[in-house]
């Protein structure tokens, strides 16, 4: 299942993650908010093993990378159906003044959990891991 990597966001970070996943021998589906047809040149530059997809398609891969700017994360993941995928949160809150000392994942998770409880739904089981760059994305 983890032989496929879905990437939500096709900017510098998303493309770097696509090259990394390709180097690891994984198949890559890359997506952005503007739809797969907007990614023709990106996909052809990345080469074999990468296809453009919808955000839903990218989010159904075994490993899903969130690679959009911090302030666009909520809309990028809204409405996605998680089903046990591994989610790599590669985003950073560069301002970091709205976190009150929490990590970004925690800040983001709380409202979601509250919302799920209020609606009486069992929220989808999600598995998360955080990726830390060692200096390439200043």
């Amino acid at each position, binding site marked *: 299942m*983890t032989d496929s*990597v879905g990437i939500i966001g096709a900017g510098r970070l998303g493309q770097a993650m696509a090259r*990394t*996943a390709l*180097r*690891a*021998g*994984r198949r890559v589906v890359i997506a952005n908010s503007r739809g797969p047809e907007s990614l023709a040149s990106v996909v052809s530059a990345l080469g074999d093993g990468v296809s453009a997809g919808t955000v839903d398609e990218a989010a159904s891969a*075994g*490993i899903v990378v969130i690679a959009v700017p911090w302030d666009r994360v909520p809309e990028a993941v809204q409405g996605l159906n998680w089903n046990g995928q*591994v*989610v*790599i949160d590669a985003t*950073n*809150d*560069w301002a*970091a003044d709205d976190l009150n000392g929490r*990590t*970004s*994942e*925690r800040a983001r998770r709380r409202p979601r959990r509250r919302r799920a409880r209020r609606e009486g739904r069992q929220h989808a089981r999600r*598995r*998360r*891991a*955080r*990726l*830390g*760059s*060692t*200096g390439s994305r*200043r």
Partner: protein
Amino acid sequence: MTRVIFVSGDDADAKADVVALFQDAGFAAIDLGDLATGGAMQQIHHPLAGVNLASDSGGT
């Protein structure tokens, strides 16, 4: 020498999948623990964010 990348997470299986992905890509992955511990170290403006390290042992 391989470049070091840090991974934090609350789910051991998920982390193993992510570590495998990055090892296959040629990184030395180092598991920093759960999100509250490791995530805080990796968070931007925190000690390990933006640090560029290499390993001669391949990491964990």
